[in-house]
C-alpha cells in the first residue's frame, strides 16, 4: 500500500469512528443516564432512592412561595416543574445568599440533599437566564447588579 492510499484508509476509519461516536452520543441513551439535574417530579418518582445522596434539582421558583429568614441569611421556597400552579414541587431550604436575579418565577438549579421530611437542603443555588435579551420597558430601571452584590457581601 502506498503512503497515500494508507492515509486515505486511515481517514475513512477515523471518519467512521468519529461519526459512530457522534451518533452514539446524539441518539444513544446517554442523556437518560447522565442528567445534569432532576425536575421535582423526576426526583419524587425516585422515592426513597432520592434520600441522602447529593443531587441537583432544577425547576422554577413557585410564585408566592419565597420566605426569607429574619436576617435574610437563608431562604425557603418551592421549586416546581413548571409555572402551572398544580405542577409537582419540592420545598427547598437554601443557606446561600441567592444571586441577584433570584425572584419568583425564575429558573433555578439547586444542589443539595433531600431529607426524609421531603425538604431539599441546599448550599448551592444557581439561577438560570433564558436566551431572551430585552431592554427595560419604558420608565423601568435596569437591574442594579452592583448594588445587590455589595449587599450580599455585607450580609456575609
Amino acid at each position, binding site marked *: 500500500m502506498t*503512503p*497515500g492510499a494508507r*492515509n*486515505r484508509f*486511515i*481517514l475513512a476509519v*477515523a*471518519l467512521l*469512528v*468519529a461519526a459512530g*461516536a*457522534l451518533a452514539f*452520543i*446524539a441518539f444513544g441513551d446517554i*442523556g437518560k443516564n*447522565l*442528567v*445534569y*439535574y432532576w425536575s421535582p417530579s423526576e426526583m419524587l418518582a425516585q422515592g426513597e432512592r432520592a434520600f441522602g445522596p447529593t443531587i441537583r434539582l*432544577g425547576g422554577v421558583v413557585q410564585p408566592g412561595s419565597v420566605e426569607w429568614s429574619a436576617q435574610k441569611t437563608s431562604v425557603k421556597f418551592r421549586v416546581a416543574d413548571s409555572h402551572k400552579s398544580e405542577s409537582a414541587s419540592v420545598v427547598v431550604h437554601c443557606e*446561600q445568599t*441567592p*444571586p*441577584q*436575579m*433570584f425572584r419568583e418565577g425564575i429558573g433555578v*438549579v439547586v444542589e443539595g440533599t433531600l431529607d426524609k421530611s421531603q425538604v431539599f437542603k441546599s448550599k*448551592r*443555588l*444557581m*439561577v*438560570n*437566564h*433564558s*436566551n*431572551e*435579551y*430585552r*431592554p*427595560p*420597558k419604558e420608565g*423601568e430601571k*435596569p*437591574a*442594579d*447588579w452592583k448594588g445587590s*452584590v455589595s449587599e450580599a457581601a455585607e450580609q456575609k
Partner: protein
Amino acid sequence: MLYVTIALFALAVGLFALHLFWAKARGWVWKAVAVLGGAMLPAGAYFGLSWAPSEQDMGEVYRIIFVHVPMVWAALLALVVNFVASAAYLFKRSWTSDSLGEAGAEVGVVFGVVGLLLGSIWGRPTWGVWWDWDPRLTTTAIMLVLYTGYLALRKFVDDPEKRATWSAVVGVIAAVDLPIVWFSVRWWKSIHQVQSNPKTIDRSMFVVLVFNVVAFMCALFVYLWHRFLIAKAARAREVALPSALPPAGPQEAA
C-alpha cells in the same frame, strides 16, 4: 446601524472569499482585513458598552455577550478549520494542510480559553457561580483538553511526516466534540441558555452582536493566516533540512 453592519459583514465575507479563491490577492487581502478588524474592534466595544441598551434582568452585566459569543464562535470556527485541514491531509498529503491544521488548533485553543474565561466572568453575577459541571461547560472543557493534547502530540513527534499523519487522525477524531459542544444545550438539560436567535434578542442588541462577530472574524482571519505562514515556514525548514546544504560542485556557479 443595521445597514452599516450588513455592509461591513458583506465586505468581510467578500475579502475572505477573495483570499480563498484568488491566490494572487493573498499578499494584500489580510492587510485589508486587519485594517477593517482593527477599526471594528474598538467601535464594537463602544457599541457594546454604551450604545446598546441595558437588559431588563441582567442590567449592564449582559454586555459581556458581545465578546463572549464572538470569541467562542471564533474558537469553534478555527477548530472546524483544523478538522477540514486534518481530513484534507489524510486525503492528500501536503504541508499546506498540515500547517493549516496546526494553526487552526492553536488559535482555536487560545480563543476557546479566553471565551471560557469570559463565560465564567458572566456566570458569577448571573448564575451565582463561576463554574458548574453542566453539559455545555463540561463539553467545552473537554474540547480544550483534546486540542491541547493535539498540540502536545505535535511537539512530541520529531518526524514531520509521522507528526502530520498522527495529529491529522487526532484532529478528525477530536472534531466529534465540536457538534456536541454546539448541541449540548439542546440535547441535555443545562444551566447554560440555548442559542439565541434574532427573535429572542432585541433588535438593537442583535445588531451590535453581529457587528462584533464580524470584527472578531476579521481578527480570527488575520491570526489564523499568520499562524499558518509561521507553521508553513517551520515545515519548509524541517523538511529541507537534510538537503538544505548548498550542493557542491560547479552547478552552484550557474
